């Protein structure tokens, strides 16, 4: 691994072409659509997530990044507290499993690009904190951020941007519409993304992690898990 990968790493982690399984996810837009959410409200859906669940994930990724970097030389990295905190703030089982699935894909990438990095080896500490649950997406993303040299702001923004783009990309499969309009939705959400970046990077520790849950999204994700016709995992 060379140095100076931070800026590029931020782009890589935000790139839908990253082969870590994201293309099969809709950020619950498919469940929302089944429950009646219409195309004209997708932008609002993006912003609702940015203020709630995505903000929690962004803050968790920042905490994982810090956990990877803050351990004094030689001291073991422990992702357990942030893993437990984000799991506790993800009340929907299908969404915890979706996050663990995305984390698994990211962890495969992390092990491939930096198998010996302490930040990667320590991912086992996350799984140990929540038996039966693999390292969750924001935890692994924070670990990857550490490996690639991302700043806290870049890490948080990667999580938030990816969340927004997961919705808009899924919208193109689920709703009629112009792909260029979907770009507009993301740009329109810039203030929401930046506000959540500020909040996420201001988080002090796992106990302080915002519990930005969205009960309707949880309910839609629960129903989606039992749907027999679906394009997306969650």
């Amino acid at each position, binding site marked *: 691994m060379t140095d100076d990968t931070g800026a590029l790493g931020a782009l890589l982690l935000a790139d839908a*072409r*990253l*082969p*870590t*399984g*994201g*293309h*099969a*996810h*809709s950020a619950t837009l498919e469940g929302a659509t089944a429950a009646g959410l219409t195309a004209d409200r997708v932008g609002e859906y993006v912003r609702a997530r940015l203020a709630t669940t995505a903000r929690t994930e962004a803050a968790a990724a920042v905490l994982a990044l810090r956990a990877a970097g803050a351990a004094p030389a030689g001291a073991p990295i422990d992702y357990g507290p942030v893993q437990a905190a984000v799991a506790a703030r993800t009340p929907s089982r299908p969404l915890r499993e979706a996050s663990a*699935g995305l984390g*698994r*894909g990211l962890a*495969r990438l992390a*092990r*491939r690009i930096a*198998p010996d990095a302490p930040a990667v080896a320590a991912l086992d500490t996350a799984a140990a904190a929540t038996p039966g649950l693999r390292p969750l997406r924001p935890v692994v993303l924070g670990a990857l951020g550490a490996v690639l040299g991302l700043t806290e702001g870049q890490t948080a923004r990667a999580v938030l941007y990816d969340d927004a783009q997961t919705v808009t990309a*899924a919208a193109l*499969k689920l709703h009629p519409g112009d792909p260029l309009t979907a770009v507009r939705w993301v740009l329109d959400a810039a203030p929401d993304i930046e506000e959540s970046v500020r909040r996420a990077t201001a988080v002090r520790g796992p106990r302080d992690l915002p519990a930005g849950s969205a009960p309707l999204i949880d309910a839609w994700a629960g129903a989606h898990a039992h749907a*027999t*016709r*679906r*394009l*997306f*995992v969650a």
Partner: protein
Amino acid sequence: MPETTTAPSTAPDAAPTARRTLRLGVAGPVGTGKSSLIATLCRELSGELAMAVVTNDIYTDEDARFLRSAGVLDAERIRAVETGACPHTAIRDDITANLDAVEDLEAEFAPLDLVLVESGGDNLTATFSPALIDAQIFCLDVAGGGDVARKGGPGIGRADVLVVNKADLAPYVGVDVERMVADASAARDGRPVLAVARTDAASVARLCDWVRGVLTAHRSGAHVPQDPGPMAPHGHGPGAGHGHGHGHAS
């Protein structure tokens, strides 16, 4: 370009050379008989081989349901993955969901001999990445027309075996199976082509023998996963695809 063009043997998360399980992909257009072929292989081989199946449906888990209801394999050994409406991506550009399912089955039912992965096929261009599977069957059927084999594409040209399926229907659709097999063989530089009908025991036996042969070669290390490539025919001339298997569009 995928990072790995042959087996990812240096990957800490995969050690194909040491893996006893053969991962076999089944690709080809919708309706050519992939699910049926998998059901046939399960019925014929599950007595001698420990098997599991992953399906890639696009809108439903219909294929997994069909296979479970066929009763040819324990239902828990058949998994469906969602592909986000991108069945090509899921077997080639981002194989995460399939690799997860294959690894889970291999871990839960260890030791497995054979995992079959059915693509959610919708045309002639989709082939599996060798990072996901060790070998692949490409499936056409006679009902699609005798000229399909001449239309080419990576699966027809360079899959490990080409199956010309539903040979029993040939008289009803005006196709000369021998001619179709000969055309396909010519397009494939001699790689194997099998005419199969599920009702023709001899043809099914030939297919099973082919699978056993690949499994043996895989275990001995003689079989190197080949990438049929995503694009139009290979530019290096006959035989080049055997040596390096990168299948790029040159």
